[in-house]
C-alpha cells in the first residue's frame, strides 16, 4: 500500500502539470532540492543549505518558528471569529454568548484564539531573551534585532487591542486602566488618548477603533515586519554560529 502510494506520488511528480506548477521534477538530487527552496515563493527567503548546528533544538528551541506558527493559527482562527462578531455595543458581548451557546464549536474557536494569543506573547518574549543570551544581536544582526523589538511591540498591541473585543467587565476595565496611562504623556497625552479611543471614554468608538487596529492595521504591519525579519535572517548569514574561540562575529 505504502509502496503503491509512493510510486503514484513519484509518477505524479513526473507529470507535465506538476512540473508546470512546481518548476521541477521530484526533489531527489541536491539540485532539485535547491530549486524546491529558491523556486518557491513561500520558501525563497530560506537558505538552500543550513548548518547542522542551527537545526539542533537547543540552538533556537524553534522559538521564532513557534511564534510564527502561533501567528498563523491566530490569523486563521481570527478570520473565522470575524464571521460571528459585530464591533458594536452591546452586540459584541452577545456574540461572545452566541459563540458559547449557539455557534457549533464556537467556544472552541475562541479558546484556541485566546490560548494562541497568550502563548504568542510568551513565545515572542522568550525568543527575544534567548536571542539576546546567544548573542544573536551582534553584527551583522543589529538591524534584525531592532525589527524584532518592533515586532514585540506589535505583538503586545495586537494582544492588547484584542483584549477589549469581548466587551465584558474584564476587557473594559483592563483597557480603561491601560489607556488612562496614555494621558500621563506630557503635552500630547490627552490628544493621543482621544485619538485612540475616538472619545474621552472607553465606549462604542473605542471598540470600533480597537477592532480595526486588531484585524487590519496591526496584522498588516506584523506581516510586513515578519517578512523583513525572516528575509534578513538569511541575508545576515543565518543563525548566529557559536563555535570554540569564536566571539560570535562571523
Amino acid at each position: 500500500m505504502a509502496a503503491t502510494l509512493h510510486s503514484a506520488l513519484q509518477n505524479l511528480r513526473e507529470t507535465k502539470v506538476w512540473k508546470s506548477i512546481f518548476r521541477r521534477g521530484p526533489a531527489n538530487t541536491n539540485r532539485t532540492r535547491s530549486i524546491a527552496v529558491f523556486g518557491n515563493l513561500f520558501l525563497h527567503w530560506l537558505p538552500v543549505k543550513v548548518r547542522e548546528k542551527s537545526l539542533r533544538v537547543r540552538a533556537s528551541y524553534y522559538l521564532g518558528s513557534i511564534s510564527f506558527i502561533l501567528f498563523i493559527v491566530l490569523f486563521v482562527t481570527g478570520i473565522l471569529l470575524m464571521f460571528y462578531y459585530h464591533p458594536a455595543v452591546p452586540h459584541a458581548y452577545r456574540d461572545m454568548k452566541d459563540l458559547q451557546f449557539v455557534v457549533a464549536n464556537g467556544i472552541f474557536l475562541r479558546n484556541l484564539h485566546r490560548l494562541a494569543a497568550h502563548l504568542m506573547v510568551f513565545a515572542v518574549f522568550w525568543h527575544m531573551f534567548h536571542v539576546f543570551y546567544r548573542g544573536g544581536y551582534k553584527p551583522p544582526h543589529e538591524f534584525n534585532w531592532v525589527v524584532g523589538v518592533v515586532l514585540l511591540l506589535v505583538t503586545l498591541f495586537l494582544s492588547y487591542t484584542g483584549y477589549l473585543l469581548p466587551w465584558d467587565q474584564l476587557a473594559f476595565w483592563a483597557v480603561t486602566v491601560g489607556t488612562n496611562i496614555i494621558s500621563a504623556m506630557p503635552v500630547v497625552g490627552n490628544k493621543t488618548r482621544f485619538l485612540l479611543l475616538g472619545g474621552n471614554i472607553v465606549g462604542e468608538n473605542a471598540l470600533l477603533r480597537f477592532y480595526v487596529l486588531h484585524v487590519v492595521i496591526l496584522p498588516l504591519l506584523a506581516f510586513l515586519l515578519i517578512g523583513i525579519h525572516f528575509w534578513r535572517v538569511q541575508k545576515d548569514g543565518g543563525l548566529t554560529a557559536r563555535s570554540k574561540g569564536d566571539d560570535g562575529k562571523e
Partner: protein
Amino acid sequence: MEKNKIETGFSSDAKKEARRVVFVTKKTSAKVVGDPGPQLMTYPHLLIREAMAFQLLVIAMVLVALFWDAPLEQLANPLLTPNPAKAPWYFLGLQELLHFFPPFVAGILIPTLVVVLITVIILLAFLAVFHAWTIFAPTALVAALLLFSYTVREGQKGWLNVLATKSLSWWVMTWFIAVAVCLTVVGTFFRGPGWSWVWPWRTHAG
C-alpha cells in the same frame, strides 16, 4: 539518459560547502574563521522539522482549547469598577510600578526607557568586554561606593558614612556625572595622536 553531474543520489547530503578560510579586519591581522561545521539541505531537513513543530503545537493547543474555556465576565459596565481592575498579564509589571510611582514615571518614562534600552543594547555590547574602560571605571567606582553605603551602621561618623543617607536619584545622578567627568577629563588631558594615551606633563611630538 545522461547522468546529471550535480546529482549525488537520494541518500547523500550537502555536507561540504565553499567556506571562508581567513577573515581580515581593519585592526587585526588575518584571522582564521572557526569551522562552521557540516551543512544539510533545507529541503527536506529544515522543512520537516518546521512541519513537525507546526503539527505538534497545533495538536497540543487543540487539546487544551477543548477543555479550557476562555473566561467571559458580565457585560461591560462603566459604573461598576471591579477591585482590583487588572490589565493583561504582560502589563501587570507596569501596573505594579504604577502602584509606587506617578503615572508619568511608571507608565511612560520607564517603558520608553526599557524599549530604548533593548533597542540600543546591541550598541552597549562593548561594555561586556570592558573596552570602554572610561565608562566602566567610574561605573565600578560608583557601584563600589553604593555597595559600601549598605555596610554603614547608623550613627557612625566620617565622610563616607554620609553615603548611607543618599537617595536612589542621587546615585543615578552621581553615576551620570562620574562617567561624564571621567570621559571629559580623559578626552581633554590624556589623549594624543591617534587618540592614544598620553601624560599631559610630558611633551610629545605631534
